[in-house]
């Protein structure tokens, strides 16, 4: 179905200003430049093909985000390593309530400042993006749309066409797994242990000073 010249111009005028945002969203979902390019291009192509179905042009942005999200989910589900969230939910029960804050803000560590704030400052964008990129697909979408893109539950519910309760539970699970991954990364990369050594050294120095 070919668009008329006028429709083409309308489509371009509406979509061009949103390309950067679409690409940004694609990048956060794929965490890989090539895949993000493919995803963004595929979404724009589908949008163009279905442009006549868009009744309210003021809703172009959520409409494009929905097309991109659906394209992303379909592509992921077609992959061999896709894990349905039901399965993830069954096998990762204790991840449900994981809280980075609870792990870090141990009372005995409190006296050397604000470790949870320090941890967030020390994590690189790359660390966080890798952790987001490893979340199960549906959880990743919820976290990216809410926390990275700043959309409301209502907007996400409309984009993903699931009830608000589902948005909330996917977000809760996604954030929990994300925080757990960041916690493991912080431990493995030594972001936290270095602080602990400082703490030990200071304690030793303090004791020596007292002798």
């Amino acid at each position, binding site marked *: 179905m070919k668009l008329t010249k006028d429709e083409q111009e309308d489509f371009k005028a509406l979509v061009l200003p949103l*390309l950067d945002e679409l690409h940004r969203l694609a990048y956060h979902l794929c965490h890989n430049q090539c895949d993000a390019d493919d995803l963004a291009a595929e979404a724009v192509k589908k949008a163009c093909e279905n442009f006549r179905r868009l009744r309210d042009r003021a809703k172009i942005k959520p409409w494009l985000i929905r097309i991109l999200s659906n394209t992303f989910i379909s592509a992921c589900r077609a992959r061999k390593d896709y894990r349905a969230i039901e399965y993830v939910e069954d096998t990762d029960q204790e991840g449900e309530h994981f809280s980075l804050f609870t792990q870090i803000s141990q009372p005995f560590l409190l006296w050397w400042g604000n470790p949870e704030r320090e941890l967030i400052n020390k994590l690189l964008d790359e660390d966080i993006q890798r952790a987001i990129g490893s979340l199960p697909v549906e959880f990743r979408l919820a976290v990216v749309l809410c926390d990275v893109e*700043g959309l409301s539950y209502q907007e996400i519910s409309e984009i993903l066409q699931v009830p608000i309760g589902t948005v909330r539970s996917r977000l809760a699970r996604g954030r929990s797994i994300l925080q757990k991954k960041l916690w493991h990364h912080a431990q493995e990369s030594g972001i936290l242990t270095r602080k602990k050594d400082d703490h030990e050294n200071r304690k030793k120095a303090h004791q020596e000073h007292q002798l």
Partner: protein
Amino acid sequence: MKTEKKHIKSISCEEALKRVFDYIDEHLRGKSRAELEHHLETCRHCFDRVEFEKLLKSRLSKLKVEAQSETLRKRLDALLEQF
């Protein structure tokens, strides 16, 4: 003679923690929100937890992305010309 504030029900830390994400996502309104805010005024632990979750959320919102590649821009231009 009771003031508005005295009508706010006290909630436990457990109850407060259940509302933290709705709160930072601006999804908590009315009485539930007032109860949580009242709890946060008196409980340091829950206050710190909210601050932490807010900070993490704001860190996510500021993630940098590699600029849109030249190839993508060209692909999209070509695509748009095609229609």
